[in-house]
């Protein structure tokens, strides 16, 4: 991946393992990417691909019992986050990088008033009195469209969409430079999702926040992201700008993914599907991790480790058979 000197956050060679019941799970394998100021990177992939793990690794909030960052570095404006001590890292969390979690229903502390939960992060990172912090919190609530007087309420008094907004308000309260949004809308109804997506976009534009948006909804990606990284079995298998990925998906997996979603504005009698199942993360196949499911697989695919190579400019792909794939199928995949 070529370095971009304006990269605000860059991740290099991130490897994360979990141990569970004695088995080692290779959740993230050699992931590198850059994030630019004011841009949004979408991480797309199926369940268990390692998306959340990547995000948590950046903030160093993986469960310390089971997870281990094997290697890698995360450079935030020249500082390697992995080299900071716990106290310095604490300063960065919430203030410079913050995160919106997958499930708004569970991401809020049920026994704390929402106002206090937002104020907490404010008072942790600025030297203001608690009163002032609470004022900031209330303002944040209003920004996300929740009436100020509801700051004394508890999470259970909010609907799912409002909770998600509170979570976002909390993440944005200290004007972070980087926002990690882990499936911020998956748990929500479409109408509410639309509200949240619009709000995220608005805040991002106003504050120039860099964002990593994790999702498996390609519609959301199309709506919000600038760059897209497709994750499969803990690896980035394709990377590029939104346009590159949507117009010219190159990796067979990405192709399959596009073929598998029913489209609103088009009729196909049968969905294209990817055969088989995602690999067992504790026992990943050698070579291309996708080759057992890939219809273009050749013997070489399982014999060598495949690297992520540019196809065109910044559009990267981890496949040795791109050239050999028939043109027709290629275009078929992009017909969206």
């Amino acid at each position, binding site marked *: 991946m070529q370095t971009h000197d304006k990269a605000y956050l860059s991740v290099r060679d991130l490897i994360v393992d979990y141990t*569970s*019941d*004695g088995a080692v799970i290779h959740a993230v394998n050699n992931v590198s990417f850059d994030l630019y100021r004011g841009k949004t990177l979408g991480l797309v992939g199926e369940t268990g691909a390692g998306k959340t793990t990547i995000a948590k690794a950046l903030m160093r909030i993986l469960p310390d*019992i*089971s997870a281990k960052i094997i290697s890698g570095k995360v450079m935030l404006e020249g500082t390697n986050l992995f080299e900071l001590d716990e106290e310095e890292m604490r300063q960065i969390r919430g203030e410079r990088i913050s995160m919106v979690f997958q499930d708004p229903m569970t991401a809020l502390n049920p026994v704390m008033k929402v106002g206090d939960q937002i104020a907490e992060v404010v008072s942790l990172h600025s030297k203001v009195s608690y009163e002032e912090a609470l004022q900031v919190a209330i303002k944040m609530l209003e920004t996300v469209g929740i009436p100020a007087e509801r700051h004394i309420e508890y999470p259970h008094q909010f609907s799912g969409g409002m909770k998600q907004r509170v979570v976002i308000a909390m993440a944005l309260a200290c004007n972070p430079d980087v926002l990690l949004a882990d499936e911020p809308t998956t748990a929500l109804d479409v109408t509410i999702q639309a509200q949240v997506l619009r709000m995220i976009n608005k805040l991002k534009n106003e504050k120039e926040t860099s964002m990593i948006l994790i999702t498996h909804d390609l519609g959301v990606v199309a709506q919000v992201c600038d760059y897209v990284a497709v994750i499969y079995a803990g690896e980035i298998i394709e990377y590029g700008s939104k346009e590159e990925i949507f117009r010219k998906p190159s990796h067979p997996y990405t192709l399959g993914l596009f073929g598998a979603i029913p489209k609103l504005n088009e009729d196909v009698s049968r969905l294209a599907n990817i055969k088989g199942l995602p690999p067992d993360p504790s026992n990943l196949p050698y070579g291309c991790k996708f080759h057992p499911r890939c219809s273009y697989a050749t013997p070489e695919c399982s014999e060598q480790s495949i690297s992520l190579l540019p196809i065109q400019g910044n559009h990267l792909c981890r496949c040795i058979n791109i050239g050999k794939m028939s043109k027709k199928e290629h275009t078929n995949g992009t017909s969206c």
Partner: protein
Amino acid sequence: MSRNSNSKAIIKRLMKNKAAMFGLALFVILIFLSLVSPFIMKYSYFEMNPSAMLEGPSWEHPFGTDDLGRDVLSRILYGGRYSLSIGISSVVVALSISMVVGSIAGYFGGKIDNIIMRLLDIIQSVPGILLTIAISSAFGSGFDKTVLAIGLAQIPSFARILRAAIMNIRKMEYLEAAEAIGAKRYRIIFVHVLPNAMAPLIVSATMWIANTMLIAASLSFVGLGVQPPTPEWGAMLSAGRAYIRDYPHLVIFPGLFIAITVLGLNMFGDGLRDACDPKLKN
């Protein structure tokens, strides 16, 4: 039941848990020893020797002798039969009744549930040991009566555990599926509900076996429970307290065996719980 389970998976996980296996091993060894003790011990548990009373531990009597010159080790090993079977049988008593009560309350819900729960409320508002003592004083002392008293007093809490588990399962779609394919109610309860709701009950029953020994000791203390000469550990412990200063081996050894049992069963129970709920592990 042959289709019994995902228990296979639980057992597999359990087997991997060293602490749990250690605990189980302790328990099994105790049971084994209590069964074979008459054949391997030099002294029988009732053999008195007036010339060797209240002797401390020695090669001849590793755990010493008691006030009638009986070999404490033999008594303890043999007494395991009583102690362990008090635990196991009172759990069986409690389990069988609370299963009926709990599943009726949990599955049918509504009014029946309400009535049962209110009755359990009443019984549970008498603190446990008091209840056991009260029941025990109604039945009198003796092995079978102690088993009954301890078992009956435990019914409310077991029934509640089961009911809670059933309430959880009631939300499961596989019950609806069973109904959708036209399964009858008793089949749904016995095939689909109970086997899946038993795990937490079994876990707490396991741990509770150990607790009965302490209850038995308490009952002996207040003059109920299994009476000496039965070499039940709790009764031995309680009876030995008169000698606690001069001949501490009379209380230390039964106490130690109770502690080992409690330790073993709790380790096993903890492991079992972890195995039933893999989430809890990490």
